[in-house]
């Protein structure tokens, strides 16, 4: 692969990683409060997807969705502001870490209800039938979400109506503190696509290029009217389910291999072959994110007087 593309991917992965690490620092410093779910180790999925879809496409994620927003183009300061409860946050602090949204960037939001984004994304695709946009909807959820009724309903609905929806299941092996393999009889979750006569495949979720290629193909296939698909992206969450998770459920050494196989380390190995140091890229990203955090911190907190606005038209 082209070194420029490798660098571009590494830069995006590094930005997502650095954002999460910065958020973690802010959380430890008690500037960010409440449940905060980091996507560390899983960044190749948002980076790959965001580079595979068009401006008019609609992306839906979960509470582990900061990276999806950033990859879609939300400015770091607006992200930090949101997590820090600033008026300058992308939702003025209303969404927070686990429910932020940025429609103006084609990011139709995080969702803190497991599985709930799938039917909503299906509706975004449905709208495309009428508005001439050619929109494809991409909805991302975890392995555990595959067992939620709403995901089943969405897949059937999309497939029966041949709607352009790509269901991306990020299989990181864990649903909170419980291993997915014990919660399903067949741990190859992409097999479920067949139940809906839908294309399904399992891909390497730690390589942005793979994600871009495969999701890209399926997005264009969907746009061409050939219906939805299910992609199971295999990856590992290198940190707790949320910040502060003691991770008592991990087997010893569980992450040893995953730490060598994670997107940034992998990209680092490839870039090294071209004489590029990934750490330089990461440090640059970290500086960007820390600057964004500082800028956000300097902004005023969301104004309590506005909290009651916009419940109704």
């Amino acid at each position: 692969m082209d070194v420029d593309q490798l660098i571009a991917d590494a830069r995006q992965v590094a930005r997502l990683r650095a954002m999460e690490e910065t958020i973690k620092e802010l959380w430890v410093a008690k500037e960010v409060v409440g449940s905060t779910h980091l996507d560390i180790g899983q960044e190749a999925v948002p980076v790959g997807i965001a580079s595979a879809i068009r401006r008019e496409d609609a992306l839906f994620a979960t509470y582990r969705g900061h990276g999806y927003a950033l990859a879609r183009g939300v400015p770091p300061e607006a992200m930090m502001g949101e997590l820090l409860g600033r008026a300058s946050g992308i939702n003025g602090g209303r969404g927070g870490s686990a429910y932020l949204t940025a429609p103006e960037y084609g990011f139709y939001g995080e969702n803190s209800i497991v599985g709930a984004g799938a039917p909503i994304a299906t509706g975004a695709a449905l709208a495309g039938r009428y508005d001439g946009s050619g929109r494809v909807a991409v909805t991302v959820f975890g392995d555990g979400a595959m067992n939620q009724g709403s995901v089943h309903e969405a897949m059937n609905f999309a497939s029966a109506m041949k709607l352009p929806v790509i269901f991306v299941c990020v299989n990181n092996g864990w649903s909170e503190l419980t291993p997915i393999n014990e919660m399903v009889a067949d741990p190859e979750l992409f097999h479920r696509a067949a139940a809906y006569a839908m294309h399904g495949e399992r891909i390497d979720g730690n390589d942005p290029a793979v994600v871009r290629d495969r999701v890209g193909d399926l997005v264009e296939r969907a746009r061409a009217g050939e219906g939805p698909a299910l992609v199971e992206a295999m990856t590992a969450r290198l940190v707790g389910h949320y910040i502060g998770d003691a991770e008592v459920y991990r087997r010893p050494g569980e992450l040893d291999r995953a730490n060598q196989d994670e997107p940034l380390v992998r990209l680092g190995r490839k870039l090294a072959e071209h004489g590029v140091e990934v750490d330089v890229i990461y440090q640059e990203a970290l500086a960007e994110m820390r600057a964004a955090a500082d800028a956000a911190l300097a902004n005023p907190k969301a104004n309590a007087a506005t909290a009651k606005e916009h419940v109704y038209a």
Partner: protein
Amino acid sequence: MPDLLEATTETTSLSYAEAVNAALGRALDEIPETLLYGEDVGTPGGVFGVTRGLKRRFGDRVFDTPISESAILGSAVGAAMMGRRPIVEIMWIDFSLVALDQIVNQLANVRYINRGTVTAPVVIRTQQGMAPGACAQHSQSLEALFLHIPGVRVCMPRTAQDAYDVLVSAAYSDDPVLVIENRSLYHLGKQEVVVGGPVSPIGGSKVRREGDDMTVVTWGSITERVLDAADILGAEGIELNVIEALWLNPFDTQGVIDSVARTERLLVVHEANLTGGFGAEVLSRVVESGVRFEAPPKRLGVEDLRIPAAPSLAGNLAPSIESIVRAARTLMR
């Protein structure tokens, strides 16, 4: 809201079901973003025949769905966020409980989280209420559940005219609206209905009978019993001021308080279970206003029961004409 003030009106003879159909037809006709879908809503024209002919008229914008309430409601949220104006049907309000998340945790939050820049103007049509032989899973009156959820408007039309009017208002509203119809009313016979004409904003109640002795607030099909009771009481010289709360959110609190200020007596009647019913809210708002009472206000509803199927068991559980008359007489003492 478009400038429809000069739209022509027409008076025509319609059943409640036909009035709903006319409102849906108007919305589909006037608002190109409108979609209409749900189980059996398209080709077969609805399990109660309410949407008959609309698929033929509006083609792809009207369609049937799988039996997947989460997908129906969730897709409506998503389509609305993209600029469509879906009108979806949940066949019985009882079935909303398999997918309430999409209303409460999703639909109700869209405008708020987006600070108004993205909204979800979804209309959910459903119907509820007791009917002879209907089982406990098909008999509940659940408006109170939705009235506790900020972000979703709720109305409950009883007459054909109101069924038409509230649905047109809902279709034009930028808020999500739950329209609770009643299957017992769909095919009761024709009424004169004015169709076309200006679109009213959502909200408002109707004074169905003028009276100075007592304010009775009610909604839904049980209003008929209240009006019958009012006739009986009127013959005894007790004059009820009957307010039908067509819209429960927004609720016409001031209208009710003004009436009670005059009558100094309040009775609230609904078909829902008493405990936690919206009657408690109405009573509380009036009492909190500090208005003077001649007698303690009172609510009538179902006495916190599951609903049995047998007519002999279920027939007397909701407030009856007699129980309303009795309650009113007691309040007059």
